[in-house]
Structure formats: structure tokens, C-alpha cells
């Protein structure tokens, strides 16, 4: 009877939520972390809209509007905060902020220095930007 049942929307909502959580937990770029948190909220919004349809009232939709409002507030603050933090460390890496911890613990450092793997390029037909800094440097030097 029902072409797209409620649970399909809920499944998509849950997947978005979980993907957002994973991104938040793994990615170290402050901006991407924030975007992932926003993606979690998108999952929630999808849930609410689907439930609103299922229940036949508009309360869920109204709720989503407020979530958007709050997300906008958080975005404003996140923007300001990230700007300031970037100025301090000149990097967006969240792992640089581990000054505050248990005294007995050593700082967590990356095991190996990051090196651009030039020749054993994993996927030559998909060169992502920023993957091959040499080339980029040449380009800028041309200009």
C-alpha cells in the first residue's frame, strides 16, 4: 500500500547519523569534524520528517526548523573558534590540541612522518588535489 515505508527513511537517517559519527571520530580536520557533526543532525532531521509524515502531524517538521536554527548558531561559533585556533597553531589539525591530559600520559604523536608517496601512487587515474605537492609547487613556480 505504502510505496516507501517509514523504515526506509529511518534506515537512511541512521546511516547518515552513523557516518557522521564515524567521521567525527576519525577525521582530524576541524572543519570536517564539524561538517560530520552537522551530518549527524541531517540524519536526525530526516528521522523527524519521516515520523511527522507517519504520524500525520507537523510537530516533527517544526522541530527540524529549530534544529536548523541551532545548527546555524553552532556554525557561527564554530567558524569564529576555528579561525582563532587556526591563527594560534597555523593548522586545522585537532590532534595538536592535547596539552590538557593526565600528567602521566605521554603526548600522542604520529608514528611516522608524513611523506608524500610520489612514485607508488595508489590510483594514478584519480589524482586527488593536494596529493602530489611537488607538481603543485612547480605550478606555482611557473606563475
Amino acid at each position: 500500500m505504502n510505496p516507501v515505508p517509514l523504515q526506509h527513511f529511518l534506515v537512511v537517517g541512521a546511516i547518515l547519523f552513523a557516518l557522521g559519527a564515524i567521521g567525527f571520530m576519525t577525521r582530524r580536520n576541524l572543519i570536517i569534524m564539524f561538517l560530520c557533526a552537522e551530518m549527524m543532525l541531517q540524519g536526525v532531521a530526516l528521522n523527524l520528517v519521516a515520523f511527522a509524515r507517519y504520524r500525520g502531524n507537523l510537530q516533527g517538521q517544526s522541530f527540524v526548523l529549530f534544529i536548523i536554527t541551532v545548527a546555524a548558531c553552532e556554525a557561527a561559533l564554530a567558524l569564529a573558534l576555528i579561525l582563532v585556533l587556526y591563527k594560534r597553531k597555523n593548522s586545522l589539525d585537532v590532534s595538536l590540541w592535547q596539552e590538557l591530559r593526565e600528567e602521566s600520559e605521554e603526548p600522542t604523536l604520529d608514528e611516522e612522518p608524513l611523506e608524500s608517496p610520489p612514485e607508488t601512487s595508489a590510483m594514478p587515474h584519480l589524482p586527488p588535489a593536494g596529493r602530489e605537492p611537488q607538481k603543485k609547487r612547480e605550478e606555482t613556480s611557473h606563475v
Partner: protein
Amino acid sequence: MNPLTTESILHSFPLIIPEALLCLVACVLFLGGTFRPGRHLWGSVAFLALVVAQIVVSTTPPRAFASSEAARSALFSAPIWLDSYGVLIKTLALVGGMILVLLSWNEIDDHHAPEYHGCLLTIIAGLCFTAGANDLVTLFLALELISIPTYVLLYLPRVEATAQEAALKYFLLSIFSSALLLFGFSYLYGLSGTTNLHGIIDAVAGQDLLEARVVPGTLIVAVFMVVAGLGFKITAVPFHYYAADVYQGTTTPCAALLAYVPKVAGFVALVRVLGFLPYNLGAERGFGPMATSQVSMLLWILAAVTMTTGNILALWQTNLKRLLAYSSVAHAGYMLIGLAVAPHINFRTGPTALIRAGSVDAILFYLAAYGAMTIGAFAVLACLSSRERPVEEIKDLEGLSRSNPGIALLLALFLFSLLGMPLTAGFWGKALLFLSAFMVESDPTALDGGSVARWFRILAIIGAINAAIAGYYYLRVIAAMYLLEPRPGEKPLPRPKLSPALVAVFACAAITLLLGVIPSLLSNRAQKAAEGKVPVATLPVEQQQAER
């Protein structure tokens, strides 16, 4: 459209006069701050606003309804429902706000004072909103009214790297946890089809889930996610991680604020959402298997793990703020006992009066006591600390009783209260909570064959053992103050001058002692508030009286 509903929505606006006042003054601060700096000016404006709000709260008579029909209608459709429990929480919020304003008076410079105090007022307004929230949307926005200005507060007074780190950590984990909370909220809405809190509780409690032996999986998801999201605010383990780092990194008044306001908000929200307040649900309208199994088991585990982890981690600390942070984690664990116990005592009336006063009011009492002693301890640190001689580590306090006997005595008082010594507020708080865990009677007819009572006794014993462990680290601080001489070559800590922060210390000490010596001052009220709660399916008791 039902005219009663419109009326109930309109009538909820007079209930938020104190909050509106605070928000208005906050706007004035934000705007006025651009014209004139000055911490004395704006500090006193903020303090005055809180005092006026408190006067409004305490003089407002309980809301009267034209008819019981209207009362019912308001219960299920108004965005704000202010019962006497909510009023007490508002009082806690406003008094706590006054102390916090005093405490941060000199901590902030003239230029940032207006923003700082404006944010503080907004936070307190948010806490007041939380106390009365009757709708998921209102509750969510109230919690955000607390969080968002907190991010600003954490950043404003200090700009060194640690302060920035603290703000960053709090911000990131806070938005993460609020996403969890919202996910839970969305399922609560989906289950019951309404965003009204009483409606949700009614829907969940109204189904005979116990008989059906089916708990919708989404209900479990909803409750767990809500508990996780709010667990962040109350620093329940494993959602507590930020606490130590953030308290350490930020200024002392902000740490005091973080230790108090979000915790109160989290507990109030948990009490509201999990619906423990409607005691009169009665056995036949029970919370179903949710109450007897999953939720209380979840809270049981959280309580046990939280207090144990908090105390154990605190043993190691040499940094005072970290120590207090872990101690606040442990105290959240004690309060969780009350929350775990709540659904089990609601259903019966026992041989003694205390049974009814068992849990929800015990939490309220503990929140007040905890607020006084924790803010007090932080306030003492704030008073003592100076640029020349910062007080960060326990060893900075060595020999304090020699150089500063009065302030040492006050700090000792707060620590003894945190430890739970008799004659202090902390003792009564713990006593009420542990007792409530003992009061769960075995009920052989229950789903679990009456093992609940045994489990809660075990919980009480875990609590008692934890209270014993806690002695160790609080005493280390006391020993440093009283049994050790100041280290040679170190300047003794200067005597704090009479300042607003010192007044805050005295206020906290007065509350700690007062609640310790005359606990009935608050406990009776809390008990009445918990009894005068709002049963869902019958007429609100307070309103019945109001009508007569």
C-alpha cells in the same frame, strides 16, 4: 481548535517572566557593552537582574486555572509546565547564578565584562527554562541556551593555548553529544507522535508494555540516546572525559559554572524526560518493563561505574582543578543512584515518610548541596590564586592553615562536605540518596522476582565504599593545608581581600553549613515538591487546591 489549548499556550507566557527578564537584561548588556566597558557596572546589573528574577519566582503564586479541564489541557499542550519542583530548580539556578556572578566579578576584565555577564545570564535563563520545559523542542532549546553561551564563556576570559584547547574540546564534544540527544528525541517523537513531554510519557506508560512483553526497539534507542546525550552534561562515565581537561584549562569561575549548571540541567532534563515525576502512574499504569529492566539497569550501571571511576581517577590527581573535576564526576554517580532508584520507589508508599522522599527530591537536595560545596571549593581557589602565586597544584596549598587560617577552614569545610562528614550538607545529601537505595523493597510480584531490592542494596554499598575511597583524596588536600609547613623559599599565599568572590565563598559556606545543620530547610520543600508532582491521568494536585 480547542480554545482551551490556545489559552494554555498563551498562559504559559506569564510563567517565564523571570527568564524573559534575564534574556532582556542580557540583550541590554550585549548592547550596552559596546558603549561602556566596566565590570562593576555590568556585574551589578547582572546581579540585580538575578535578584529581581528570584523575587519574581518566589512571589509568583502557583498558576491557577479556570477549570480542571484547562489544567489538563495545559499539561498536555503548553510548552511550559511549572510545578513546584520546577520552581525549586529555578531557585537553585538563580541563587547559583548570583554566586557565579560574584565569583567571576574580578576574573573578567572591564572590556569583556558585558558579554561575559550577558552570556552568564542567558545560561541561567536557559537553566530556568529547562526547569519548566514541557516540550521536547522547548527542552532542547533550553539546553542549547545553556551550551551555546558556555562556549563563549569558556573562551572569553583567557586566551592562552590551554584555555583555547578547553573551549575547543568542550565545543566539539558538546555538539557531538547534542546530536546524540537529538537522535533520541527524534525517536521519542516518532514513538508517541507528539513533542509534548507529558504526552510522550503518557504514551509510553499508557501501553501495557509489561503485559505485551514487547518493548519497541526504537524506545530503547530513544532512551539510551537521551541518557547518553544528557550523560555528557552530568559527566556520567563514559561521557565524562572532557571534564578534567576542560576544568583544568579554563578559569576557575568557568570551571565552577561547568561543574554546576550543566549538571543541574542534565539531571532535571533526565527527570523530566524519563518521566519519573508522575509518581501516581501506579502499578497498573506502570512504566512497563522499561522501568523494571532496561532503564534502571542502564542507570544502575552508569551510577556504579561513574562514582567508582570518578573517585579512582581522582586519587591520582595533583592538580586541584582536575581533582575537583573527577570529584564532580563521582558526585554525578551518587546522584545517578537516585535516578536509578526513582522508578522503583514511586510505586509504593512505605512505612516511613522518607520513602516517598526517596529519590527525586534526594537528587534535588543533593544538587543544592553539591552546588554549594563545589562552587565553594572552586571559589576558594579563585580567591587564593593570583598572578604571582597561582594555585594549581595541591602542593601550592601547603601550610595554608598557617598563612591563611580562615580561608583554610572554609576550604576544609567544603572538602569535608564533599567527603560527606556529618553536620555538612554533603552528609545529608549522601544519606538521603543511599537511604533511598535501601528503601527499595523487594516485591516478589515484580517481573524480576524481587531481585531489584538486592541490586539496589548492592548499589548503596558500592556508594558507601566509594565514599570511603573519596576520603583519601580530599584528605590529601586537607593534610596539605593543615599538616604541612609552607615550603621554604616560597612566598606564603596572600590573604584575599574582601571581594565579591570572597562573598561568594561565604555564601557557599553558609549554605553548606545551613543545609548540614538544618537539612529540613530544603528537604521538606523538596519532598513536598516531589509529592506535589503532576500525575498524568488525574487532575493535578496543586491545581485542585488552587480551584478550592
